[in-house]
C-alpha cells in the first residue's frame, strides 16, 4: 500500500488526498503464505451507480417518525452475482467513507477506492467468488440524499430541514437498495467503525437475511468520551459564522469549523504511539522554533492539511447529521439489553478490535462477543495487535484479510 504523504513537498491535490486512508505506511506482514492467496488484483474500473426510491407518496418512515422521500443511494458493485444469489457481501462504510470502495472510477483516477486493499481478485473479499456491494448512506454527501441535496419541494438544499437520520434508517435504505438489486439473502455484511454499527443493526433488523457478520473496530453504543469528541466537532462547525444555521449552500462554506472538526477526528483515529512514530516533535520546514503562531511542528501541518483537504470533499451539515446518528446508536437501550438485541440472530460472527484503538476500545467488542455467546451464537473474536489506533482497521489489511477470507470460505459452506 502506498504511503500517504502530506507535507509541502508532496502534491496536495493528488494521491495524497485520500482521507479515508490513514497516513501510515503499511506494516510488514506477520501472516504470510498459505492463509492468503498469492495473486491479488484490482477490480478495475468501477462505476458509482444511484438508486432512487421512496418517491412520494411512498416515502420511507424514519426512526424519528417523519416520512421522507425521495431518496437516492449511491452504490458500487464488484464481482458477479451467482445464479443462486448466495454470494453477496454488503460492505458498509465509516463516517467519511463513500460507495467507492474498490477499483478506480476512471482510467486516469489516481486513487483507488477506500478499501481497495481488501476487495478484489485474491483479496480478503475475493471478487472472483463474491458479489460485493458497497452502499453509501442516507444523510451523507457522496451521491446519496443528505442535507446538501436539493429539496424537490423548495428547489433549495435541505440544510437543517433534513430529518435527523439514524443508523437504523441508513440500514433500512440499504435494504431497499438490495431489494432493488434482487438480493434477498446476504452471505456477509461487513464494516468498520460506524460501518460496524450498521453491520450490527443489519443483523438485528434483518436476522433472517444475514449468514455471516463482520463488525470491525466498533461498538454497540458509543462511550461518553466518543460522544464528547463528536460534540466538539459539531460545535466547531456550528460556531463558525459561515455555518449560518446550516444555510450556507451557494455561499461561503464553514471551512474553518469543518476543518477543525476533522482535525479533532484525526487525533482520535490515531494512537499516542503512532503519532510519536509518525511525527515525534519534528518541525515542519524549519530548523528552529519560529516564536510565533505559524506552523512549527509537523503534526500541526499534518492536521491542518487533513482538515483542509476534508473540507474539499465533505459537507459540514452531513458531518453534523452522521455524527449525531452515531451518538444515537444504542443497541442495548433499543432492545432492553445487548443480549436481547441478539435474541433472534442466527448468523456467525467475526468480531475484530485493535489493541491501540481508544476511540472504539476492545472492551466494547468484548461486550458484543459476550452477548452473542450468551445467545449461543458462533463468534470468533480477535484483538489484533496494532499501534495504529482506530485507523488500524484500514491499515492492518494482511491480518484482517486472511481472517476475512478464511471466515467467508468456511462460513459459506455451512448451513
Amino acid at each position, binding site marked *: 500500500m502506498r504511503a500517504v504523504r502530506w507535507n509541502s513537498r508532496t502534491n496536495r491535490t493528488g494521491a495524497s488526498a485520500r482521507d479515508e486512508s490513514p497516513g501510515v505506511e503499511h506494516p510488514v506482514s*506477520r*501472516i504470510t503464505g*498459505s*492463509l492468503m492467496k498469492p495473486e491479488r488484483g484490482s477490480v478495475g474500473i468501477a462505476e458509482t451507480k444511484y438508486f432512487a426510491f421512496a418517491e412520494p407518496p411512498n416515502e420511507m418512515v424514519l426512526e424519528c417518525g417523519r416520512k421522507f422521500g425521495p431518496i437516492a443511494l449511491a452504490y458500487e458493485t464488484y464481482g458477479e452475482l451467482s445464479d443462486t444469489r448466495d454470494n453477496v457481501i454488503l460492505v458498509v462504510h465509516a463516517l467519511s467513507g463513500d460507495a467507492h470502495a474498490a477499483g478506480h472510477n476512471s482510467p486516469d483516477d489516481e486513487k483507488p477506492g477506500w478499501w481497495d486493499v481488501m476487495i478484489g481478485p485474491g483479496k480478503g473479499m475475493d471478487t472472483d467468488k463474491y458479489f460485493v456491494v458497497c452502499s453509501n448512506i442516507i444523510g451523507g454527501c457522496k451521491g446519496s440524499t443528505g442535507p446538501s441535496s436539493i429539496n424537490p419541494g423548495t428547489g433549495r438544499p435541505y440544510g437543517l430541514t433534513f430529518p435527523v437520520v439514524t443508523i437504523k434508517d441508513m440500514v433500512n435504505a440499504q435494504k431497499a437498495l438490495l431489494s432493488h438489486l434482487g438480493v434477498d439473502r446476504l452471505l456477509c455484511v461487513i464494516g468498520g467503525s460506524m460501518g460496524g454499527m450498521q453491520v450490527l443493526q443489519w443483523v438485528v433488523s434483518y436476522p433472517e437475511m444475514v449468514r455471516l457478520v463482520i463488525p470491525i473496530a466498533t461498538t454497540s453504543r458509543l462511550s461518553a468520551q466518543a460522544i464528547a469528541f463528536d460534540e466538539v466537532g459539531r460545535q466547531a462547525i456550528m460556531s463558525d459564522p459561515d455555518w449560518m444555521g446550516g444555510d450556507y449552500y451557494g455561499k461561503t462554506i464553514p471551512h474553518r469549523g469543518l476543518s477543525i472538526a476533522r482535525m479533532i477526528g484525526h487525533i482520535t483515529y490515531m494512537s499516542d504511539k503512532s503519532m510519536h512514530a509518525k511525527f515525534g516533535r519534528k518541525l515542519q520546514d524549519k530548523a528552529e522554533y519560529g516564536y510565533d503562531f505559524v506552523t512549527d511542528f509537523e503534526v500541526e501541518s499534518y492536521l491542518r492539511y487533513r482538515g483542509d483537504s476534508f473540507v474539499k470533499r465533505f459537507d459540514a451539515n452531513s458531518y453534523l447529521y452522521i455524527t449525531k446518528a452515531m451518538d444515537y446508536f444504542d443497541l442495548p437501550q433499543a432492545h432492553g439489553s445487548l443480549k436481547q438485541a441478539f435474541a433472534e440472530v442466527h448468523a*456467525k460472527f*467475526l468480531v475484530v478490535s485493535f489493541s491501540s484503538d481508544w476511540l472504539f476500545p476492545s472492551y466494547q467488542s*468484548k461486550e458484543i*462477543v*459476550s452477548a452473542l*455467546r*450468551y445467545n449461543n451464537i*458462533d*463468534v*470468533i*473474536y*480477535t*484483538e*489484533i*495487535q496494532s499501534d495504529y489506533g482506530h485507523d488500524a482497521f484500514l491499515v492492518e489489511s494482511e*491480518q484482517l484479510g*486472511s*481472517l476475512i477470507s*478464511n*471466515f467467508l470460505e*468456511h*462460513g459459506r459452506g455451512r448451513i
Partner: protein
Amino acid sequence: MAVEETKLDEDGTVVRLAPEHKLIIGLVEPGSRVMDLGCGEGDLLKALKVLKNIRGEGIELSEECIQACVAKGLFNIHHGDLDEGLADYADKSVDYVVLTNTIQVLHRPLFLIKEMARVGKKCIISFPNFGHWSIRLQLLLNGRMPKSPRLPYEWYDTPNIHLATIADFRDFCPVAGLRILKEIRLRTTGEGQCKVVHLLPNLFADAAIFLVEERSRGS
C-alpha cells in the same frame, strides 16, 4: 513435544495431535459442549468436532493461533488471557472445560481452576509430571534445573512457573474444591505415542490427565 499426525475423516484435514489428545478425546461424551482453554491452533477442538461432534469453543491469547483456528473452520474462538479468568462465562455453561499442558504457565493456577470448575460441569486437566524419575535424577545428580522433552526451557527463560507432580496435583484438588473422577498417568514413547502407566505413576509417568468436577456444597 512429540506429535502425531492424525487424518480426520470429514474433509481429509490432517491435524497434529499431541500424544495425550487421543486419551482426552476418549474422556469426552459425543455431542457435548467443550471449551478448550489455550486452544492453540485448534487441533484438539477440530479433532473433537470431527470425531465426537462436539460444540467447541476456544480461548487463546495468540493472534497467530487464532488465525490458524479460523483457517481450520472453527467458529467459536475468543481472544483472551486465561490469567484474567472466565468472568464472561456463566456457571456450568459447558460440559467440559479442557486445560491441556497449560497449568504450569498460569500466574494464578488456583484461580483459573476454580473458574474452570465453576463454568464447566467437568474439567479435564493435563500437565507434565515434575516428579518423573528423570527429572528427579537430573536435580539429584547434576544439581541443575531439570529439562525434559515436555519441559525443554532453560530456567531463566521458561514460561513454566508453576510446575507440579502428580502427587502435588492430587493434594491440590481438595484445596481447589475438586473431586477427582478419573486419573490417567501416561508415558510418552519415542514414536509420539503414549502408554498408560500403572506402576508408581508419580515416578514413571511423564504426564497426567485428570478428569475432575466441582464438589457440590456439603459433600
